[in-house]
């Protein structure tokens, strides 16, 4: 008993005594293996150790607020622009002073003050079963409200950030009232109560519970390359449709990174950001994680190429964050669980 | 009353002690008594008469509401002081012996010793007739053996005063008389002052030097056993109390087939 107690104390003190070393701490909502590989490579190249805290973006933002000027976080990484905007609005971020960043990443994928920068893009697309859906009937997100799709549409719950930002983009483009009408009609078309994740929606198409679904490109890539042959088969069985190609383009969101206002290792942090937007790393995101690179010079992977080129919605991403509240409110009002 | 007057060298002095439980139930009302050094004193009374409370107050396991207790020349508790049970030099043998189940007999006996010496432990175990039991665990012993271990354990730190709570109640009737004598022998051999609780008057009459009778929290009688017969003034009251007690003793004795006449 005594020994265990001493061991426990030793562990406690070991954890408290944070030694000074060349390091950078990143709070991230991304839980991908490829990220860890990139951090490891970065350490090999620069000798700077990357501490990673993984949690939900909202928890991380709350943590930054509370920690104030005593935070150990240098970077905040999220899977959507909305959260970065929120962090920026709360004064938690500071501009990333880097020529490399501003010259590499297009304006619309960065905040105006460069306090955050997009790393990768994901598009919200429509997938459908080719035997049951004539792609000629598909046009846009707005088209999903058509009664043709009554009892045929699959989509996950409104708690999901990708749905929230899709709704925000609809509000930005159509206005609040039209967006509400749209959402009401979409809910009418649900094949089932929203549940499960994006992969589950695709599997439900295969099972015949619905005929088309709104999902994220990134998850389709995961599905197609799944270790489970049945999943890969589900991915093969559906066809992909890029919505709104005739007008504003498909809705995209970014996974991005912001520099915290009180970053203790800001210099190292900027080095890491520059590393993450480099061509090689960007291509790694594309090939290993099926995300579209934010760096225009980076090549997309074979898998992404097979889905074809598409037109992106040019809406500034910061707008999505601003409209997030309204989006959630509308979801609740129209009864989109 | 009784023997109070001629006590100069009292070891235990209790003055106007009262104790209530949970603010309601009155266990002892303003009791006063003194016990002379070297005496073996029986405390008798019904259940609920305050016998156990009296012993626990002396041992320091309870705090009185008012009154003082002194042992030797030290005041154990009063308005301002309270001496911990650990520093009173009072040993107590509990009704169910309270042996430490995770320790061997030897370690149980050694527990209260400042410096544990094997010879001392052997000596104590020999005194209680349990030589060779050192390595056994309490659950391997019979009730009588457990009681003797408890006695040896209590004697080990050489207490000034020995308290025994119902030491004979858990024993078979045919063993009882022998063990009673044995306990008296040990107490006398070690020249201890001792108080023991019993609800059986036979125990008291058989081995005690003096007797305390408690009734509903009040001290009714305190006298030497040999004085019992001469207590003219208190005869009716004592008789009534004793009758009640004797009734019960007789019944118990009848059940086990002993001779009830001894108590009369």
């Amino acid at each position, binding site marked *: 008993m005594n020994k265990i107690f001493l061991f426990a104390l030793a562990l406690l003190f070991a954890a408290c005594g944070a030694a000074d070393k060349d390091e950078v701490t990143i709070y991230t909502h991304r*839980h991908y293996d490829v990220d860890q590989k990139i951090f490891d490579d970065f350490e090999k190249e620069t000798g700077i150790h990357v501490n990673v805290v993984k949690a939900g973006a909202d928890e991380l933002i709350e943590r930054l607020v509370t920690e104030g000027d005593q935070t150990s976080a240098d970077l905040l990484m999220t899977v959507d622009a909305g959260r970065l905007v929120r962090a920026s609005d709360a004064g938690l971020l500071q501009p990333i002073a880097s020529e490399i960043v501003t010259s590499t990443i297009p304006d619309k994928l960065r905040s105006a003050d460069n306090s955050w920068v997009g790393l990768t893009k994901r598009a919200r697309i429509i997938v459908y079963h080719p035997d049951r859906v004539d792609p000629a009937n598909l046009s846009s997100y707005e088209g999903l409200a058509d009664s043709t799709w009554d009892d045929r549409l699959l989509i996950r719950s409104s708690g999901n950030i990708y749905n929230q930002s899709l709704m925000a983009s609809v509000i930005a483009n159509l206005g609040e009232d039209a967006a509400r009408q749209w959402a009401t009609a979409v809910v009418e078309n649900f094949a089932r109560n929203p549940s499960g994740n994006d992969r589950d929606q695709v*599997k439900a198409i295969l099972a015949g519970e619905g005929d088309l679904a709104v999902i994220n490109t990134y998850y389709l890539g995961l599905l197609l390359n799944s*270790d*489970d042959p049945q999943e890969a088969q589900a991915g093969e069985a559906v066809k992909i449709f890029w919505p709104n190609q005739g007008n504003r383009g498909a809705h995209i969101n970014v996974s991005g990174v912001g520099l915290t206002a009180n970053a203790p290792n800001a210099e190292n942090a900027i080095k890491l950001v520059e590393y993450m937007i480099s061509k090689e790393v960007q291509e790694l995101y594309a090939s290993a994680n099926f995300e579209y690179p934010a760096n225009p010079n980076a090549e997309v992977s074979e898998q992404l190429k097979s889905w074809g080129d598409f037109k992106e919605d040019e809406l500034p991403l910061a707008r999505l964050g601003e409209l997030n509240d309204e989006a959630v409110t509308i979801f609740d009002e129209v009864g989109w669980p | 009353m009784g023997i109070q007057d001629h006590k100069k060298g009292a070891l235990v002095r209790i003055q106007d002690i009262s104790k209530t439980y949970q603010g309601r139930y009155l266990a002892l009302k303003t009791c006063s008594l003194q016990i002379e050094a070297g005496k073996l004193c029986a405390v008798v009374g019904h259940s609920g008469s305050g016998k156990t409370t009296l012993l626990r107050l002396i041992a320091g396991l309870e705090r009185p509401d008012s009154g003082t207790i002194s042992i030797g020349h030290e005041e154990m508790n009063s308005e301002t002081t309270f001496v911990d049970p650990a520093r009173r030099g009072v040993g*107590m043998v509990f009704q169910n012996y309270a042996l*430490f*189940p995770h320790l061997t007999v030897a370690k149980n006996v050694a527990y*209260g010793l400042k410096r544990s010496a094997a010879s001392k432990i052997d000596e104590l175990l020999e005194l209680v007739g349990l030589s060779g039991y050192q390595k056994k665990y309490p*659950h391997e012993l019979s009730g009588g053996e457990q009681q003797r271990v408890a006695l040896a354990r209590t004697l080990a730190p050489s207490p000034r005063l020995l308290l025994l709570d119902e030491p004979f109640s858990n024993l078979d009737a045919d063993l009882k008389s022998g063990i009673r004598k044995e306990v008296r022998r040990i107490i006398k051999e070690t020249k201890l002052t001792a108080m023991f609780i019993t609800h059986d008057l036979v125990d008291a009459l058989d081995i005690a030097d003096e007797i305390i009778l408690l009734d509903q929290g009040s001290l009714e009688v305190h006298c030497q056993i040999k004085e019992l017969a001469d207590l003219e003034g208190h005869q009716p009251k004592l008789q009534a109390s004793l009758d009640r007690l004797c009734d019960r003793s007789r019944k118990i004795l009848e059940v086990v087939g002993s001779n009830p006449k001894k108590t009369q």
Partner: protein
Amino acid sequence: MRDTSAWSVATLALVLILSIPYIAFASGLMAGTGHKWGHLTTYFLNKFFINSVILIIGVGFISCLLGISTAWVISRYEIPGRKVWGILLYLPLAIPTYIMAYIYVGLVGYGGTFVKLGQLVGTNASGINIMNIYGLIWVLSLSLFPYVYAAARASFSKRPAALRETATLLGASESKYFFSIALPMARPAVIGGLLLVCMEVLNDYGAAKYFGINTFTTGIFRSWTALRDLQSAVYLAGLLIAFAIVVTVLIRLSRGRKSFATASASGKPAKRIKLSGRKRLLALLVVALPIFFGLILPVIQLFSWVIPAFDGPSFVKNLWIAIQSLSVAALAAFLTVITAIVLLYFSKWNDLALIKRLPNLSTVGYAIPGAMIGIALFSGGRYFVDFAADTFGWRIGYLVYGGLPILIYAYIFRFLAVAYYPLEATSLRLGNQLAEASYTLGKSKLDTLWQIQIPVLKPAIWAAVVLVFIDTLKELPLTLILKPYDIDTLALVAYNYAEEEQMTKAALPALMLVSVVGLLSFLIEWSKNSTSKNKR
């Protein structure tokens, strides 16, 4: 000054330290509802309420059904492999509810394991959608019924033989004995287990979110994250706690005022009845089915995810995470139990009646959603950090934010009840006399605690350590919020992968979690058997 006032002060100080989350939480409640409260009450509050009630009734009922029937068979009948069944029945508890949810979708869902097996034998079923409230009831019941089982089993196996014999002499049939004697006597224990089930149901986040069911806890997260209204989230948590208290009181009231304790306690336990023929088959089915659905199928499903994706490096990585996870859980478990012991005895040694009751206050943490504890600790910790910075110029932020100490503190706060109540019950049962004997032998209170009470309580202490250890290993929301940057836990990694729809990667840490908990349950059972042999 009386010496016991030192204990009063010590108890008070400890309780105060353990009250930081309450203080932060209460000050949050004082601040009133947030700007989205109207929105929440209009669209959600009745849904939260109705869904939570349905879940509690459904899960409570099935858990009791499974838990009591299995406990009865195990403690009453001699069936082949009884000991092994008995241990296996604890193990579904090792599978966190959210993992169980993903597993069942993977089993019976579209393109799931059952569908594949069906295709092998030529059927063309496409699977079923269980992502609804009934599916949630099923999934939660399967991973929570062992709480009832454990409680009921302990109670059934304590019933003395004399009781059963008396009942037989009075002409009671087996079923009559069960319903009119054994079950009513087991009721307090079963209710204790049922309460744990209810708390877990109310606290579940991952499974309900995945299935798209709105409950109080998903509502708290929605209010906090999507609606950006922390204030209303705190208020919802307040409502949840009130709801939990109402449930507790209702269940406790149903116990009535009959005393069941008196008749239990001592006596030789009843001999188990040997069964044969159809009855034996039935008894076997009763224990085998819950194990099949709650453990064997899920583990097979986990393996079916792990095997195709298995590779050396990820195994080593997960092994390292497992080591961290186990160390943190062990540290938390030991410190929680030490806290429980200190609280138990310090409060006992003090003289003030009010302070004697304080420990009960410190053990309500189990009913507070983990996420709320995390938030409350952050805002509570902020006062300390600011105070230290303003007054002394110390920068202690790293201790409070994202350090191991605060995580451990949070675990202690959350799981104190798990350790405290069994220890309190055992110490009450053992009584005070050993301690008193020790005092009269010249030992101080602390010496007595160390030399007598702790050794005597050892089996109960180890049991408490293991219980807290298991709970800590599985804990999710608190760990999510307070996790230090250099530590990962199995539960966390499993959840992160599952949320990112990578079940093949989530399965390995989940499987490790199940193995560790399984091994521990086995050890507890085994040590119980060997100690009881020692005593005879």
